[in-house]
């Protein structure tokens, strides 16, 4: 027995992350999943698979003073069981133990370097992180450089969101919604002339003017916060040195204590002839001076559907070519409803199909492109002409060819995203935030939050970790989709169908009554965990203003709201959101959730 206790003690002392476990144990499985999600390597001692397992378990219990499994030890410290480990993760003690903070962290005195912190990438994450770090009196520099798209498009400071993402997207989505509102206005008494036209160039100019004013605003704010801005491309020479090249080719060298990679992603092109030469992506669409005309959007991502949605909404003949499912990763019931709605609003879908070639028929303007594609169900090859072909089939992280591989920074081979633990990469003084990270929601507010908290941990003696769970989000397709928590598919696979209760209803916004829009297009559902007091684990709203509706429910999820809490909350009338407080029909009951007619 004494020998076993010695063995246990030395095992604990020699292992970075050690889990005393039983292979069939559910709580042990959960704690292992936690470490896997954080990219932390662990050693699991499966007591049930050991010959002297029972005796070993006694020894463990004697040494750590805890019997129930799992028992987690980090760097010689006994953290505890599943609950204690989850708590240590949430309040930062786990990260502190693993040495991801500066106080017991990788870089000592940073004053020997040109900058205490170098941020590569001036987007949502990079700007938030750099300004927060400068706020602690640190010497901070931001490198931001946009390599032009294959079509030659480039943009200013601010990253994807400001220039070729959220901001121009939402403005163009609004343009398309306004077009619909103008038509609906007739039912409310407005004497609208039949001949209301949309001018694409007016929209693009207005959107670009706003984007440029934001570029300027960011330059001013960096100056304000004492952050050095360099419009230059950075390549790593070593762990503390970066070579920079500006637009004119002038080279320079910068040394730094810490570096945060916030380089984000860029759209992928398919490997088919003509794609790069004649196709565009979201990088080019929002500043397109020529008319899109008859447009083909290849892809089923939210980028593809949102763009197809607003292009059709402002009057262009729009087709969406989809390889298999819509909105991979999102709730599929809602995804299909979005597709059906888009189809009724005039977006043509070709699915399942993939493009095989893009050829130039005539330069124009208007440009004419011939697209050859394969229908996947029959194998039939067809061709069709379009004025514009846009690819929205995925994005690759901007981590290639800048010297990271040579430094040993580990990445996801599929798309180059960085593997990280509490935003720290496999190289101790190199961190990542935002879209460039693997396995995190690719959203602006997530990058901003991660950036701010990282700066506080590195330089502000704080320990709060970024909480990536239950991040609310919205897809701005013509019919908007807001969600927080799990999709129905994920809820079922995680908890088991018998433990899920899905409350749902169709609804008709009051504003849709006079213009006689369909009563059962809009829909919402609340997914609850019966094994946990009917806790709300997934919320989905498909309807107008879904983003505004969903934000508040994000707070409810943070507070661990249950179905009872939703029911106890009195609704605001007349709104769409109030139906979330009066849900009674369950999917299990089989009752039709449609609303009654007039």
């Amino acid at each position, binding site marked *: 027995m004494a020998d076993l206790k010695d063995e246990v003690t030395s095992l604990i002392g020699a292992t970075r992350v050690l889990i005393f476990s039983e292979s069939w144990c559910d709580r042990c499985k959960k704690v292992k999943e936690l470490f896997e999600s954080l990219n932390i390597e662990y050693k699991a001692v499966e007591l049930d698979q050991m010959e002297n397992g029972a005796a070993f378990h006694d020894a463990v219990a004697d040494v750590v003073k805890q019997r129930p499994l799992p028992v987690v030890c980090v760097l010689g410290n006994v953290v505890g069981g599943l609950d204690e480990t989850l708590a240590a993760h949430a309040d930062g003690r786990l990260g502190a133990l693993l040495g991801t903070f500066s106080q017991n962290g990788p870089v000592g005195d940073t004053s020997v370097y040109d900058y205490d912190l170098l941020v590569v990438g001036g987007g949502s994450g990079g700007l938030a992180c750099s300004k927060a770090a400068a706020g602690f009196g640190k010497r901070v520099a931001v490198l931001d450089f946009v390599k032009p798209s294959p079509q030659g498009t480039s943009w200013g400071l601010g990253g994807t969101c400001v220039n070729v993402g959220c901001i121009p997207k939402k403005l163009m989505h609004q343009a398309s919604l306004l077009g619909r509102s103008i038509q609906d206005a007739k039912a409310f008494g407005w004497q609208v002339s039949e001949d209301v036209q949309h001018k694409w160039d007016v929209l693009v100019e207005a959107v*670009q003017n706003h984007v440029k004013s934001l570029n*300027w605003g960011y*330059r001013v704010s960096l100056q304000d916060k004492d952050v050095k801005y360099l419009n230059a491309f950075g390549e790593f020479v070593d762990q503390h040195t970066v070579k920079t090249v500006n637009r004119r080719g002038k080279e320079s060298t910068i040394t730094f204590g810490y570096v945060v990679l916030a380089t984000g992603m860029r759209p992928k092109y398919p490997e088919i002839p003509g794609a790069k030469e004649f196709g565009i992506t979201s990088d080019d669409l929002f500043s397109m001076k020529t008319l899109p005309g008859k447009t083909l959007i290849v892809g089923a991502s939210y980028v593809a559907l949102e763009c197809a949605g607003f292009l059709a909404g402002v009057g262009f003949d729009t087709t969406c070519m989809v390889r298999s499912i819509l909105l991979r990763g999102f709730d599929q019931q809602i995804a299909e409803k979005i597709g059906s709605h888009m189809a009724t609003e005039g977006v043509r879908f070709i699915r399942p199909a993939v493009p095989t070639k893009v050829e130039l028929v005539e330069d124009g303007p208007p440009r004419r492109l011939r697209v050859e594609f394969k229908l996947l169900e029959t194998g039939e090859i067809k061709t069709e002409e379009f004025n514009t072909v846009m690819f929205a089939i995925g994005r690759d992280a901007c981590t290639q060819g800048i010297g990271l591989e040579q430094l040993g920074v580990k990445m996801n081979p599929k798309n180059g995203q960085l593997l990280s633990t509490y935003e720290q990469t496999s190289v101790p003084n190199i961190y990542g935030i935002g879209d460039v990270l693997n396995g995190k929601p690719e959203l602006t507010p997530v990058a901003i939050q991660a950036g701010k908290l990282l700066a506080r941990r590195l330089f502000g003696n704080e320990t709060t970790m970024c909480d990536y769970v239950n991040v609310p989000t919205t897809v701005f397709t013509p019919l908007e989709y807001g969600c927080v928590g799990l999709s129905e598919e994920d809820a079922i696979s995680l908890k088991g169908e018998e433990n899920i209760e899905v409350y749902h209803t169709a609804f008709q916004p009051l504003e849709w009554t006079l213009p006689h829009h369909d009563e059962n297009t809009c829909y919402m559902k609340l997914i609850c965990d019966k094994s946990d007091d009917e806790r709300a684990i997934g919320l989905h709203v498909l309807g107008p203003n879904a983003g505004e509706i969903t934000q508040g429910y994000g707070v409810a999820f943070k507070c661990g709201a249950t179905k009872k809490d939703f029911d106890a909350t009195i609704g605001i009338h007349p709104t769409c959101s109030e139906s979330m407080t009066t849900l009674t029909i369950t999917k299990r009951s089989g009752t039709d959730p449609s609303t009654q007619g007039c």
Partner: protein
Amino acid sequence: MASVALWRSFSSRLLSSRLWPAATLFTSPRRLFDVQDEDDFRKRVLESSKPVVVDFHAEWCGPCRILGPRLDECLKEHQGSIELAKVNVDDLPDLAMEYGATSIPFVIGIRDGNVVDRFVGAQEVSKIKDFLSSVQK
């Protein structure tokens, strides 16, 4: 009298002809210029013998487009004794921020190398005229 009528018809045709921009070279002294770089700013603004109004602007700025012609019109009354320098903040951001042009349009008056007055936004004509008077002094 006939010569006045002739002059009127000549000048109105001149105004509406494509020769007008070139014609201004002969009809009024050139007082407006785009600042090319920091060196240019030093030479033509800070070291100018005449007071210079500096208009910090950008292509994407709506109010700048409203202020521009207004400023130009008001300057006419000073008959070339005040010069107008235009600085595009996207081209010369460091210069712009050095003089405090964070919100635009941002206009300053420089006399003997010093900023003597300033205003922000597409101000009304009366405000602009007061500004120009204080710069002229």
